[in-house]
């Protein structure tokens, strides 16, 4: 009979299996690390996005809050093409909302108008406003007299300083109809 012992000899297989296992585990380990690094990066991105969103959002609210400072005579008298100006004709204003010493957002404001020609100094986003009449009767549900009052509409665009997230709100203010 033939000698079949060679087949029964299992010397050396352990190492092969170990190697295979090692390779598998290494691949698994590496991929796990990679995944978690990406997860961290995703989380970081999300954090940035959310932070930017809130910074931009805060910029809008800040602009509403300080409306008395920007709603100057030029802004009130020029229905067409009025953009945010402070004392030195600035199209935009960087604001440090949380007062930590670094600016959080930049605000740009212009009148919402029926002929919304872009203003060169403003960002595309700030120029991208709905095409509507600037002065209109008080809107539905506002509870203001149609006889005595009118509203003027403004587009407020805030850009977060870090990531350039832009949030725009439409706001109106009630005035006497003279």
């Amino acid at each position: 009979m033939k000698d079949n012992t060679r087949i029964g000899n299992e010397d050396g297989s352990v190492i092969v299996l170990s190697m295979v296992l090692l390779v598998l585990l290494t691949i698994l380990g590496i991929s796990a690390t990679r995944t978690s690094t990406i997860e961290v990066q995703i989380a970081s991105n999300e954090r940035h996005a959310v932070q930017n969103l809130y910074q931009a959002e805060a910029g809008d609210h800040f602009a509403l809050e300080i409306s008395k400072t920007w709603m100057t005579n030029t802004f009130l008298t020029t229905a067409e093409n009025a953009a945010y100006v402070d004392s030195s004709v600035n199209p935009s204003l960087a604001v440090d909302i949380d007062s930590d010493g670094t600016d959080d957002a930049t605000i740009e404001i212009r009148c919402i108008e029926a002929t919304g020609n872009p203003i060169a100094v403003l960002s595309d986003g700030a120029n991208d406003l709905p095409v509507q009449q600037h002065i209109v009767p008080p809107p539905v549900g506002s509870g203001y007299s149609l006889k005595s009052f009118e509203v003027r509409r403004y587009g407020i665009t805030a850009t977060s300083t870090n990531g350039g997230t832009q949030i725009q709100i439409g706001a109106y203010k009630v005035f006497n109809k003279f």
Partner: protein
Amino acid sequence: MKRCLLLAFAMALILSSQLWADDTEIFGTASISIAPNVLIIFDTSGSMSTVDVPGEYYDPNTTYSGSYTTNAVYEYDCGWGCSWELFANDINDLNCPAVKTALQTYGYANNAEIKDSDSNYVCGGSGKTLRLGNFRNYDESGAGTPSSRISVAKEVIKQIINDTDNVRFGLMRFNNNSGDDQGGYIVQVCGADKTSLINAIDNFTADGYTPLAETLAEAGLYLAGKKSWYNGSGGTYDSTCDSSGSGCLQYTSPMQYRCQKNYIILMTDGASTQDKDSKLTATGAYINNGTIGDYDNDGNDTGSYSSDGSDYLDDVAGYLYENDLNSSLGTSGGSFERQNALTYTIGFQTQQQLLQDAAINGGGNYYTAGSISGLTAAFEHIMSDIADVNAVFVSPVVPVSRMNRTYAGSSLYVGFFKPQNDGRWAGNIKKYGLDSDGNIMDATGNAATLSNGTIKDNARSYWSTSTDGPDVLLGGVGGILLDQASRNLYTYMGSASALIDSTNAFSISNTQITTSTLDVSTSAQRDDVINDIHGAGRSWILGDILHSKPSVVHYDTDGNGSLDASFIFAGSNGGMMHCFIDSNGREEWGFIPPDQLTRLKLLSDGTTDHDYFVDGVPVVYETTNQKILFFGERRGGNNYYALDITTYNTPTYLYSIDPTFLVSKDGDGNGSADGVSATLGQSWSAPTTHKIKTSSGSDTVFLMGGGYDNNQDQDVPNASDSEGRAVFAIKVSDGAISSLNVNAGYYTDMTHSIVDVAGFDSNGNGYTNRVYAGDMGGSIFAFEDDDGDGTWSKRKFFSASAHDGVQRKIFYSPDAVEEHFGEMIFFGTGDRADPEETTVVNRIYAIKNSWEDPFTSTLTESDLTDVTDNLIVLGTETQRTEARAALANSKGWYIRLENLGEKVTSGITVFNGVVYFTSYTPESGGGGGGGDPCVLVSGRGQARLYALNYKTGEAAHDYSDITETDGEGNEVTQGKHDRSKVIGTSIASAPSIAVLEGGPEIYIGVEGGIAHEDPNVKAALNTYYWRQIND
């Protein structure tokens, strides 16, 4: 039989007076003299023994040396800070003998009625404070043999008491010895006889400190009838009272009547000393448990004064002026509900900021004197300030800012009227400033009103050179008019449209104005009427501004593109439309409408009835190159007039609208004229400017109602009116009829006259497409031109009378807000022309209107929810749910005005979801007065301000102190009583809501002042969309 006759006579009287009822009947017509209490605080401090006052009276034959020109005349001018300004170079230039003689004899003249150099110094004009240069030198130089201060003061005050009648003088001095340096005591009570007063003054000696604030506080306790702080039952200082508060003297208040005025004159030669008593700062220690402390918040207390002096004097003066010292006189909500005291101060041989502050806070004035004649002049001046008691009525207007034409500006213009016995009522327009918080400020920068809105007695309005307070007959454009040398008065005679054309001059020299023009018989009468209108020989010229209002228009007079001047247009019942110059208050011109020429003689006919002339509200249409003034006459006539006022000083006559205007027009386009049913009534409409569509394009129009039919003045009016049944629009440029002309000539639902119309643009395209109006029969008409083709659909939308047959008159057009279903309109009912009527229970309505929903029949109250009981707040849980459901399912809500005879007397304005309006409630119980002379002069009845949630009729603010609970027993802060609050007496003006740079404010004219309310709006801007532009 006799009784029958008497009864018939009485009935006839009642009926005849009812026939001409108007809202003027509720205003008191008399000025009455009630002797005021004047308490003189005589400084008896040790320094008064100083011998440094010229004891000699001013001698006109002596020439005193000094910086003033001896024979020149000087006027005390408070234009820009007070100073003595040259009035005339030489006394011999004066052409008013009375004033000239006074100056020649005494060296001074207070309230001298003399015109200035422009008018060649003739008699007349506003009251001026004048001094001869020689007198000024005398008072400043201290010439002559010196006397002691106390002997001079004694002599002067004795003389004043001796010379003045109809004043209840009282006398007070400081407590004097070293142990009792606390405050002062009453030497003679107010009303003491002259001999006692003079004897008491003779016994004064100079000794002790100067506790100014303590003594003034003690004076207040006396006037209020409270317990003394320092004095015992013996009348003078008592250490037990001072230290423990027991055994203190109980004062009896000298106040007799609620409209009596109370004055304190504080004459002192020194600064405050020994004036720091702890009671001055103790909480709740003063009258009505009030606290003095730093009452005026000037932060100056206690200040740096030697010998324990303090700065509390101005705080005490402020307290005594701003608080009710005697709440037992005058009840809340009535006239003269507040009994206060005015403090005047005289610095004798001293100049002190504290004395000036005390006078400013105390509603009085501050004088200085350095001589016996100077002190006499100061006292006489104060005596001349003590005016008769009278009531004034006002309506405020805040015009647009000249700077940006968007915000309301920082000035407030107030139209005044004051009833007069002779039927020729006085009027005025005064201007005040508004600070960044909307507070009303006078020309000196001090607050012009007290917290309840009353104009301060010592407020100085713009244009005025001295304090004028709420007095109609002082300051304002009326005061300037008195001094004006000549007036430009125009009418329109039909031949030349330029009013400055000589044919249109309302003057003696214009031969076109004949006796028949003025409907008089002789040329002397013609001249008399013309001179009378110009103001010759009249002590007050400007007629009452009753239902008219000032309208302020800004001009670019130099054509450089920026607005540089403003002019004020207002109609008066003195016969004309006026144009005043805003910068100096002078009258630029006056225009007498041609239909009033024959009526002008009524002003001087000697009867006591009040005549109306240009009583309508003016409206101004403006474009960049044209301005048109348009106005009616209200009860004064039936016409409207349009003037071109593009150039302010060359007005041009444009057109007029007379009552037959619509008769020949074809409103329904059926090819035939609408006929006499389209006749207009009295020109009551306050038109508004709109752009509306026509069949061929668009027109700029004045939108107006048909006017008032005096059928409605009858006790029981005829079932329908014959005039004023129309709603129409005319082109502003030429007065031609535009596309809206609905009238009774073809629309038979229009049965009653219509005096006010509202229109607005509901879709924001710039063209008015919705119009609403209410009539005297209680119906609301609605019109719509949504498709912009110039044809208006119409509906009789609502009837306030249909459900019970009671006639509820609508005098003011509805207000409206935009809702998702269409618009919601708001209006009230009430007979403005008969405010004392009490049989009708009036309403305030809020009704939804949708033009898309099918309209089958006129709505009535049964389509609405009665929210009078406010169950949505005050009900049980179930009731609240039911009330909400009922509101949601009905066409709106209404409130029954539950006070007897209460009526809505102003238009409604909805602001920030709150419905604001004012109402009038007649005095209940007939108001006989029971020996109270004050009823002759006060306005009657109560004025209320309402603030309601526009969706539910709930209270919008917490206006009432009354505690209310809901059906479950829980306390509610905004219950039924919080819907309104009493803001004064008589008829208040409509709430004027002004969006100022600092935020919105509400101003309401009330008797004697301007109530100021905060609408409580949180956000300056509202947001209406949100979007993220990029990631």
